[in-house]
């Protein structure tokens, strides 16, 4: 789960990291008030959406006065960035900057550990730094059993600042960032830029935290930060129904059990010349209700021209899926063609259920995908 910048700033602040004051607004008028409260000087107005490249998209702007902040907020609020509507802006005093650094910690899969990365080249995308000047990135593997050791923090900090004073300040920030990372159950926590001001203070100007979804159960205060307005409504609906759903641009709606098979199904749609409309995993334990919900979500997507079920029964029982399909067609009109592939546990029962309502089932995945792609194309042409 991604946190908004303003949420991440607050977590870092609570961890004791110096973060300049700020405020959020959901209306231009509120933005003006926040700017006034911040001291009526120059402020930065930043769109709060879960998308990178906000700056390039015009979602980050300076304003010289509360009045200008109001006008700027009016432009940014409601804007679409990578398909996501901006509902909230963050306002913060424009900072004086002597130098900008990057500091971040991620869970590194290869070393099976948290890894810190710091770079004196901050303020820009760290991937870009890695690609163009990799010698400016410094890493330290953290043994999770020990946490970030003081000497590691200071060693990294000396990569950013030559003098011991700012290095100790930065080391302290790194320690606190690590603690915030662990306390939030994060898989990523970064400050970019970490700024040194002309007065020698070191402060966090922007923050990004991504929380491991598996940690949300034991961090209810973090889970409560989820902002459903910042997400695709159909994806929110799917999550509430315990489905994993990601909407894409195509026209073949896919309902699959298992993430790997779901991806492979999408790939096969593409392989046979179609475009998948979504990723949808109904998960392991089968339950007709889940299938009903899946069909609701998929049929709500008006771009979908044909619906493809690809079920490999294991824990998932094919008859449960068949019952779900039948139940859905009774509850609402499914006005698009459905192609069903079923094999594995209780396959025979499923076929009988479907045949009972005049539906057919295939056993071969390629065959099913080809049919679904053909139907979607036919519908698009019609």
């Amino acid at each position, binding site marked *: 789960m991604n946190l908004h910048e303003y949420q991440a700033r607050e977590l870092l602040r609570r961890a004791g990291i110096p973060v300049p004051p700020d405020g959020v607004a959901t209306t231009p008028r509120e933005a003006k008030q926040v700017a006034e409260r911040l001291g009526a000087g120059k402020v930065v107005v930043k769109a709060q959406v879960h998308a990178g490249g906000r700056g390039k998209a015009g979602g980050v702007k300076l304003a010289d006065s509360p009045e200008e902040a109001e006008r700027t907020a009016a432009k940014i609020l409601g804007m679409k960035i990578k398909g996501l509507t901006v509902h909230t802006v963050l306002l913060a005093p424009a900072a004086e900057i002597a130098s900008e650094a990057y500091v971040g910690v991620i869970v590194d899969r290869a070393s099976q550990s948290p890894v810190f990365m710091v770079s004196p080249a901050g303020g820009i995308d760290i991937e870009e730094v890695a690609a163009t000047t990799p010698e400016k990135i410094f890493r330290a593997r953290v043994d999770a059993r020990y946490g970030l050791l003081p000497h590691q923090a200071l060693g990294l900090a000396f990569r950013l600042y030559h003098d011991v004073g700012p290095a100790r300040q930065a080391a302290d920030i790194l320690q606190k960032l690590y603690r915030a990372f662990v306390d939030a159950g994060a898989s990523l926590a970064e400050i970019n830029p970490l700024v040194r001001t002309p007065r020698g203070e070191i402060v966090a100007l922007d923050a990004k935290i991504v929380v491991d979804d598996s940690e949300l*159960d034991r961090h209810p205060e973090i889970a409560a930060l989820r902002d459903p307005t910042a997400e695709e409504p159909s994806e929110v609906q799917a999550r509430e129904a315990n489905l994993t759903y990601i909407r894409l641009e195509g026209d073949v709606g896919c309902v699959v059990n*298992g993430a790997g098979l779901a991806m492979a199904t999408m790939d096969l749609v593409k392989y046979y010349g179609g475009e998948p409309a979504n990723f949808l995993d109904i998960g392991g334990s089968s339950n007709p209700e889940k299938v009903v919900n899946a069909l609701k979500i998929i049929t709500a997507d008006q771009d979908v021209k044909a619906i493809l079920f690809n079920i490999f029964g294991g824990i998932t029982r094919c008859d449960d899926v068949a019952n779900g399909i039948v139940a859905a067609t009774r509850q609402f009109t499914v006005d698009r063609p459905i192609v069903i592939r079923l094999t594995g546990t209780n396959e025979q029962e499923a076929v009988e259920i479907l045949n009972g309502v005049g539906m057919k089932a295939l056993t071969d995945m*390629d065959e099913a995908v080809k049919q679904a792609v053909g139907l979607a194309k036919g519908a698009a042409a019609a």
Partner: protein
Amino acid sequence: MSVFVDGNTRLVVQGITGRDGSFHAKQMMAYGTRVVAGVTPGKGGQTFQDTVPIFNTVAEAAAQTGANTSVIYVPAKFAADAIFEAADAGVGLVVCITEGVPVLDMTRVSPYVKERGARLIGPNCPGLITPGVAKVGIIPGQICTPGPIGVVSRSGTLTYEVVYQLTRAGMGQTTCVGIGGDPIIGTSFIDCLEAFQADPATKAVVMIGEIGGTDEQQAAEFVRTRMTKPVVGFIAGQTAPPGRRMGHAGAIISGSSGTAAEKMAAFEHAGIAVMQRPADVVPLLKERR
């Protein structure tokens, strides 16, 4: 022959009285796996299905039944402790089926298990099966058949799909290992490839990867430099958008890395035959035998 699981496997089921644990314990017993013990704290002294003794702790179970392999079906919040417990009990192979184990837990679990000389498979994996001999986990036994192909995969049902294609074509399997879809897992592709390379019964290997991370790239390098047996590979997620988690916690393209294209290129560079779709597994293997 086979890898990790064979006729000497003596299995203890952690969480044997839970919903998933009891269901799959029965399935494994029906398949012929030697399920020698179950563990549920507080149910020590009872019996599962009138035949399998239940213990309060894995240590007791291992001491009294000689269990050498454990399979874990406990809820996510207890999974890390269950793994610690199995490792402390001296069980050599620990298979964790549980999904949703926090990745920061795994950063502490993984070195613990290694220090104690145990092998962990998973978490969030379907387990493994040596067809006709023993299954540990949830892979449906009926889709497998004994034979010379080793299968290793990050996925569950996609593995079944591929194994199903193999079995239908008469190509049996030595062992099928589902290593799990999480970012941090106990047993990697390379660990499995190494085992398959060393297993005389395995004549060719199928490797099923997906987007996210660089495990497949490292595995490809291992194949290129250390393996003599033919390897056929698949990568799921060619159509996945970047930055979105495709179900599995590990299946996510971060920035520009971990894409299917990158992984398929690594496979090709390593001489691994790349499947475009699951059904390609049969003809590609035939070409290479």
